[in-house]
């Protein structure tokens, strides 16, 4: 049996293909719009381009929004695939089934951030009569479209290389060989987690967009390891279960969606003001407030599991 015959993958790839076709049509038109755009002109060409611009904006708004939603479906599909991939107990086994999985996931995450940035710039652009960010917005989309094509190629490579006869490694390997970057210990990891978390809150409060951008990128890395290798233990209530995906399952009340969702949103709102400032030359530091709120939600949930476990058992894992 081929993995391409599973319902989730058929639906996922079909939607991806439709979105790519729509994006490709838009991209062709974008080249014409950017090449001949002159807002002050009142020529037939400029009016035609303005009409075309509305159409392309609508298509892109739809496709980009779909891509963001499709990411959740992708995660859900990976979870569902664990039922047919031998050895896989959750998405960890499916993602780790070949060396394309983690690269694909990382690329998807980067693209999600890129799409979010595009949606914000698009909204700002449409807020003015003169479309001041039109060219930059379309340049950003062109970069994202190149990423989407790469992503699709990676998806095909990934899905076509998932072995269905040879058992894959899953959380079990994570139980046995927990690896932390740079030889960090759990204590050091947690210390870094709360230090950077606190720093982000202070920087966000002081509206230091560049510093917050840097800290948030660092926090993405640290928080991933802290949640997987420390807080996860308290969520699963097992000292060796170090998996970023199992918490997305029903057994854990889907809490992973809230934890990872608030983390990624916190990071997103933390890095956006700096990037938007670079593109629009205007301040959007109010987004840092949303970043703080999301990070606080994530940290509270993670800390809650640790405190609850300690109160129940009197020990730390």
């Amino acid at each position: 049996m081929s993995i391409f015959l599973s319902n989730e993958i058929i639906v996922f790839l079909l939607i991806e293909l439709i979105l790519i076709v729509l994006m490709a049509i838009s991209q062709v038109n974008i080249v014409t719009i950017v090449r001949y755009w002159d807002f002050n002109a009142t020529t037939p060409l400029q009016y035609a381009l303005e009409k075309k611009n509305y159409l392309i904006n609508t298509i892109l708004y739809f496709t980009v929004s779909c891509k963001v939603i499709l990411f959740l479906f992708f995660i859900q599909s990976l979870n569902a695939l664990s039922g047919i991939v031998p050895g896989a107990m959750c998405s960890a086994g499916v993602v780790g089934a070949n060396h394309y999985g983690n690269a694909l996931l990382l690329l998807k995450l980067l693209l999600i951030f890129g799409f979010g940035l595009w949606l914000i710039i698009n909204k700002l652009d449409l807020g003015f009569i003169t479309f001041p960010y039109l060219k930059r917005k379309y340049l950003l989309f062109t970069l994202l479209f190149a990423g989407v094509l790469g992503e699709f190629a990676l998806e095909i490579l990934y899905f076509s290389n998932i072995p269905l006869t040879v058992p894959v490694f899953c959380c079990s390997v994570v139980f046995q060989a927990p690896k932390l970057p740079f030889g960090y210990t759990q204590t050091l990891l947690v210390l870094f987690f709360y230090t950077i978390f606190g720093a982000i809150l202070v920087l966000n409060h002081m509206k230091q967009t560049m510093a917050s951008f840097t800290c948030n990128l660092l926090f993405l890395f640290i928080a991933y390891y802290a949640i997987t290798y420390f807080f996860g233990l308290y969520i699963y209530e097992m000292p060796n279960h170090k998996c970023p995906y199992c918490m997305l399952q029903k057994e854990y009340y889907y809490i992973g969606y809230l934890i990872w969702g608030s983390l990624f949103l916190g990071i997103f709102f933390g890095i956006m003001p700096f990037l938007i400032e670079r593109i629009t030359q205007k301040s959007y530091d109010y987004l840092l407030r949303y970043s703080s709120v999301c990070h606080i939600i994530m940290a509270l949930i993670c800390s809650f599991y640790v405190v609850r476990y300690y109160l129940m058992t009197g020990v730390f894992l």
Partner: protein
Amino acid sequence: MSKIAITNLNKLYNPNKPNAFYALKNINLSIEEAEVVILKGVSGSGKSTLLSLIGGLAKPSSGEILVNGQNIAKLPDIMSSSYRHKEIGFIFQSFNLLEGLSVYQNILAPLSLTSLSKEAINEKVSRAMSLANIEHKQHQTVGSLSGGERQRCAIARAVVMEPEIILADEPTANLDKENSLMFIDILKKFKALHKTVIIATHDTLFDDQNCIDRYVHMRDGEFVE
């Protein structure tokens, strides 16, 4: 600065098709504040197209339409809607009223999109009904009104937002002479209120009315002497 300044305006329908045709050809027109202008011409001369472009209901193929110095042809759709809502009062030949609603509710409709207080809304609706002389029918549904009453209801709806510009497309085409003369009376009130009014019509009743400042004749999408 003119209230409305139109420069080199063209409107091409069905572009790149065999049946493509220019509804407006190189139109240049300047209308001052509080001016009442009549666009005259036979059916298909481009009067309605010109009104729809000034009203932001359609976009030109080329040229510019400055209203209070702003090229409304360049407005994004959402701003175009806002422009129509706040700046323009439309009076249509076929009235375009909501049949199932009362006169009061029809006139209230544009105000329902604003954040005005109930008292302010009531005051505006009353003023508009008084101007159009329709307050005595305010609780009746539109379906039970005569043609002249419907037109007066449509006029009240057009002015309830207190727009500076009023556009009327063949406003007397569906009215008898008595109601048409009543429309001329309302037109005089618009003049007294310093509204800028553009009326597209081929009704001879508008000829030689002293409340009208200018007559512009159109033929085949162009102005003629």
